[in-house]
């Protein structure tokens, strides 16, 4: 899933200071799962913003709506009946959702209330970690199902650097060395010999380096 974290309250207040009526839009997908921008967080942020305005002797009218999927134009349409009643929109979705709302309502300012972080998985309650960088040419088949592009700090494709120590990355003892994990996994699969095949220089065109990406499925389009 795409993970996100709510922005500091002061930053959000800074965005909406000039306005008195806002639409606070959550999303029921990834940001709900990572507890950053679902219905519950919309409610909490709404109260926090109204209280902050009250302290300043101002009134903030907040309309709340959490869409099924904010990155889908079909669901964004549900905002149409509310949009004329507000001065600005604050989105609690990932960057994709924010942009869909901004695209649909050209005359309304739209502000993000979360920082979109990464594609990751839940490690345990309340902890998410990066797993994929969307490089567009998956290497997991040769790395034992552990991604060096996303999980090695130097995205090395041919093994660990000289800074791998006790299974941890040199940048931070909290970070696992991806190549230690890969090596352990290759061994448990009995295919550690495959490590010695050189992975050639990656073609980064399939990643962000090739410019903004798009998928066109002729069979569906």
């Amino acid at each position, binding site marked *: 899933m795409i993970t996100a974290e709510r922005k500091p309250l002061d930053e959000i207040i800074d965005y909406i200071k000039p306005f008195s009526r806002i639409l606070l839009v959550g999303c029921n997908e990834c940001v709900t799962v990572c507890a950053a921008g679902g219905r519950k967080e919309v409610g909490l942020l709404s109260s926090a913003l109204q209280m902050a305005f009250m302290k300043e002797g101002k009134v903030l009218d907040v309309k709340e709506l959490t869409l099924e999927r904010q990155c889908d134009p079909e669901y964004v349409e549900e905002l149409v009946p509310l949009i004329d009643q507000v001065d600005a929109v604050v989105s609690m979705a990932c960057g994709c959702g924010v942009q869909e709302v901004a695209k649909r309502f050209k005359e309304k300012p739209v502000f993000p209330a979360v920082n979109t972080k990464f594609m990751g998985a839940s490690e345990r309650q309340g902890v998410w970690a990066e797993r994929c960088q969307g490089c567009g040419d998956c290497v997991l088949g040769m790395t034992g199902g552990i991604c060096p592009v996303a999980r090695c700090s130097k995205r090395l494709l041919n093994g660990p650097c000289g800074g791998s120590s006790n299974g941890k990355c040199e940048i931070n003892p909290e970070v696992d060395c991806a190549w230690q994990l890969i*090596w352990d996994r290759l061994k448990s699969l009995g295919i550690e010999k495959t490590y010695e095949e050189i992975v050639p220089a990656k073609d980064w065109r399939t990643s962000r380096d090739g410019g903004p990406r798009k998928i066109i499925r002729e069979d569906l389009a």
Partner: protein
Amino acid sequence: MKTESVLEKVLAAGHLAVTSECGPPRGAVPEKIREKADILRGYVDAINVTDNQTAVVRMSSFAACLIIKQMGLEPILQMVTRDRNRLAMQSDIIGAYSHGINTMLCLSGDHPCFGDHPMAANVYDLDSIQFIQMVRKMRDEGKFQGGDDILNPPKMFIGAAANPFADPFELRVPRLAKKVKAGADFIQTQCVYNVEKFEKWMEGVRERGLHEKISILAGVTPMKSVGMARYMKNKVPGMDVPDELVKRISGVPKDKQAEEGIKICVETIEHLREVDGVRGFHIMAIEWEQKVPEIVERAGLYPRPKI
């Protein structure tokens, strides 16, 4: 001979090679490089010039190499994949070669988080093994990484690093094998303090006959003080300093610790030169270049062969 590299010639003639290194200055002070390199004149076969080591901005390795070359000495161009993509690396390589620089060391480089610009984007378009492959392709096939022909291809003698002390230990010989396969000609290792572990690694290297395919220069760094020994032990990732060594240095008075450090360094060289497959030494006297001639002499590596 694959190249005009003095280092290649020294190794080919069967001598134990000696290299050392200069960290370029943090500003436009070319005289600093000249001072450091002058100290090494006649005592080493070639001088590594680091490339923004520990991710701290310094004079570029290429520029400092050029200064050293102009002094009639032999620089080794260090290059990391952290700061440059394959376009920038290849253009610098042909640029360096155009100035007679013919030996280089291919590294991934320390992560930016260790340096003075932790906010910088890191590049890592290639890893060190892909980097070696690229330089070999430039030399042996006369082609850029992208496939186009190069006019007068750069003939670089290709170095790489190996750290026998990093984890997982059992992967360190296979990793060397990959660097050999990619086309590296010589290796400079991480500083050897844990001689026993180094020998164990060398055993694995010999078992696979890798020592016959690549020239391994063992890295050594003299300790200036017990403080430095502790720092290396506890703070430098991938460094293995045994407790006995720290104890030995702390066992002598403060004003004798530097001498004890030099002594340990010389003893290490004397011990390692007997290890089958060790083809030379890379003496990294960090901001202590003035001690290199003494180490080289005391270790019996002086005079250097005339090539």
